[in-house]
């Protein structure tokens, strides 16, 4: 009997040998520590970027919003309006129009010219008329922080892509260094040992959210690294021509024929797609080299039941079909391509999916935060505390809501250009000032208190700026959510002081 138990015990021990687990855990810790700050910022801003369209609506709450999808006539009118506006601004080169759908409820019209560098971003109404210029600097600040950390585009994308790889690698090593995966599957022991509490939180949120964590890190890494990967692919197979390599993936490119030509008849193209797919709705249209003989149209039409934001249908300027991207029902590679962006940002299935992504994104942010806290708590338990690093990490983590609010206040008070300096000054200032705090908890509480006040100030300034002019209910929801966040921050900061006073 005892022999059987011993054999069983040996068999269980060998499932993941302790030496392997300890080595994997050492690698997991090293990687986590090296990339912690980047992963934390990218995860937190990613969670906010899921709601990018709602944040944009909050910033411009009097702009038109459209119920249902855009009609073919309105889409055609929007292209005409965009072209006319772009011509007037010397920016008539590429035009992109996105209609309302699951992801957002506005008609977005963008145009830009590579040579002049001029670009325009407008919002339109249900008839396809351009109504007002888009102006959402805070949402763009958050989105750019997530996508490229406000660095030059190529470097920023690469660094965020590398952060995605590091996150994916942490997930792999974290899973392989978790020998009690099933034994502790539902354990969350709160209070008592800080190390055990943080480890439980880290492991439960990490393991049960694993499908989401793997998907967002893999898609994020691929989106960030795509320029580098395609660059090498171009060297190997396309004589170094990255555009040609991208065209293999993303569809036909315009030709160099710059002869003037009529703008494409988008309504006719929509009708031709609907002749074959009666349930297809207009999602977007991208026209490269508009008004030139070499122009190419990428028409996005969405049918229900797919992750992709739309399938791409290609036409030349005369309306001749050039094939389709197969993003909804094509081959495996085509469908993966179509699902990459919606899966990464949660832009499919409407607001409920965005909320689920928000919760899971926050969970991933907490996993990142608790990972470093575990490392610091382990050092403390072993008698090698790192109080300066404990304060720095606490300050970095809690300074982010404060820094986002500071960026918003800087935009309100000064200009969009002040957002990044305000964000950096707040983050660095908090990390430096935290060293003067008597202990880590106090540093965290003071920063949370400031963050709560700053977020309330943002809500108040927004309310004052838009008083009586808000027509979009999204603005009220966003302000309400921000107020709730502020209250939670304030409550968590003030609770110990309040309970001491009450006692």
């Amino acid at each position, binding site marked *: 009997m005892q022999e059987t138990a011993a054999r069983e015990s040996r068999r269980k021990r060998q499932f993941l040998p302790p030496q392997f687990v300890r080595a*994997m855990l*050492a690698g997991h810790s090293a990687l986590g520590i090296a990339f912690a700050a980047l992963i934390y910022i990218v995860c937190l801003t990613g969670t906010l970027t899921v709601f990018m369209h709602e944040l944009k609506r909050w910033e411009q709450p009097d702009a038109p919003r459209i119920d249902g999808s855009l009609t073919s006539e309105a889409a055609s009118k929007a292209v005409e309006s965009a072209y006319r506006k772009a011509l007037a601004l010397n920016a008539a080169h590429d035009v992109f129009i996105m209609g309302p759908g699951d992801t957002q409820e506005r008609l977005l019209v963008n145009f830009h010219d590579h040579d002049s560098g001029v670009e325009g971003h407008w919002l339109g109404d249900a008839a396809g008329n351009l109504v007002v210029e888009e102006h959402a600097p805070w949402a763009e600040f958050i989105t750019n922080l997530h996508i490229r950390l406000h660095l030059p585009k190529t470097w920023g994308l690469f660094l965020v892509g590398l952060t995605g790889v590091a996150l994916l690698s942490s997930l792999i090593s974290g899973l392989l260094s978790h020998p009690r995966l099933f034994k502790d599957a539902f354990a969350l*022991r709160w209070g008592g040992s800080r190390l055990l509490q943080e480890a439980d939180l880290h492991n439960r949120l990490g393991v049960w959210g694993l499908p989401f964590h793997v998907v967002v890190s893999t898609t994020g*890494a691929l989106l960030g690294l795509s320029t580098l990967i395609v660059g090498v692919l171009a060297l190997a197979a396309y004589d170094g021509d990255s555009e040609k390599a991208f065209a293999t993936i993303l569809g036909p490119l315009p030709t160099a024929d710059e002869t003037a030509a009529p703008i494409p008849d988008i309504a006719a193209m929509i009708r031709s797609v609907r002749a074959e797919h009666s349930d297809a709705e207009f999602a977007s249209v991208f026209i490269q080299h508009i008004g030139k003989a070499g122009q190419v149209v990428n028409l996005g039409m969405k049918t229900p039941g797919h992750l992709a934001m739309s399938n791409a249908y290609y036409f030349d300027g005369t309306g001749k079909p050039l094939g389709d991207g197969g993003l909804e029902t094509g081959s495996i590679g085509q469908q*993966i391509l179509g699902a990459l962006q919606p899966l990464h940002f949660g832009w499919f299935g409407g607001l409920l999916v965005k909320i689920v992504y928000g919760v*899971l994104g926050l969970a991933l942010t907490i996993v990142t935060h608790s990972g470093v806290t575990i490392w610091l708590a382990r050092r403390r338990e072993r008698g090698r505390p790192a109080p300066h690093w404990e304060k720095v990490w606490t300050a970095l983590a809690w300074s982010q809501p404060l820094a986002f609010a500071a960026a918003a206040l800087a935009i309100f008070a000064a200009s969009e250009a002040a957002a990044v300096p305000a964000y950096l000054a707040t983050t660095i200032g908090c990390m430096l000032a935290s060293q003067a705090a008597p202990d880590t908890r106090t540093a965290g509480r003071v920063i949370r208190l400031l963050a709560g006040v700053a977020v309330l100030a943002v809500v108040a300034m927004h309310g004052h700026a838009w008083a009586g002019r808000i027509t979009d209910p999204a603005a009220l929801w966003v302000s309400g959510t921000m107020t709730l966040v502020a209250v939670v921050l304030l409550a968590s900061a003030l609770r110990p002081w309040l309970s001491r006073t009450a006692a």
Partner: protein
Amino acid sequence: MSLDALDSDVVLTTVGSLLMVAGVVMLRKRWLLRGQGGLALLIAGWVGILAAFIAQSRIWGAELGTTYALGALSLAAYAIISATFERRKSRERAPREAAVDPEERPTNWKRGTGKAMLAIVLAGIAAIGVGVAFAVQAPLPPQDRAVLGGLLVPILWGGGMAWTLCDPRLVRATIILLAVSALGYGIAFLPKALS
């Protein structure tokens, strides 16, 4: 109000969500038994979760339904764990609760830099080499092999990073990554260079 009057999509989605919650609850009940029986709970739990996936796929299609079900599984588990957490006051831990400690390794700046170069640079070079080799040579349509090859890169890079950081022998990791890089870039570039 009869069931017939309800939208069938809403009914199936609700049933699917309830099955998911029920499945996770049963798995937790089995977990509470700490391996002392409860096989029926284990099987019933997983059957419930599987049924939830099937229900969501029936209503939303395989693509969206599977995605929704995965999200629902995570949320159901989070909800159940947060509703049943154990509050503790004592700092004492039972021996079985002792966390595994990472391996203690002698390290210095040179070794740290070497590890970082391996995990970030060489693992990345090797992963891109294999991904591009797949994108160039795999017997698939060009778009498929380009996308799948691209998708391989972060997965291989992440795996390579995890492995090199856990492997204490730098030379072994260097040799293997160099060999994989040579193979990957060889397959990707040589046919064109030789033609």
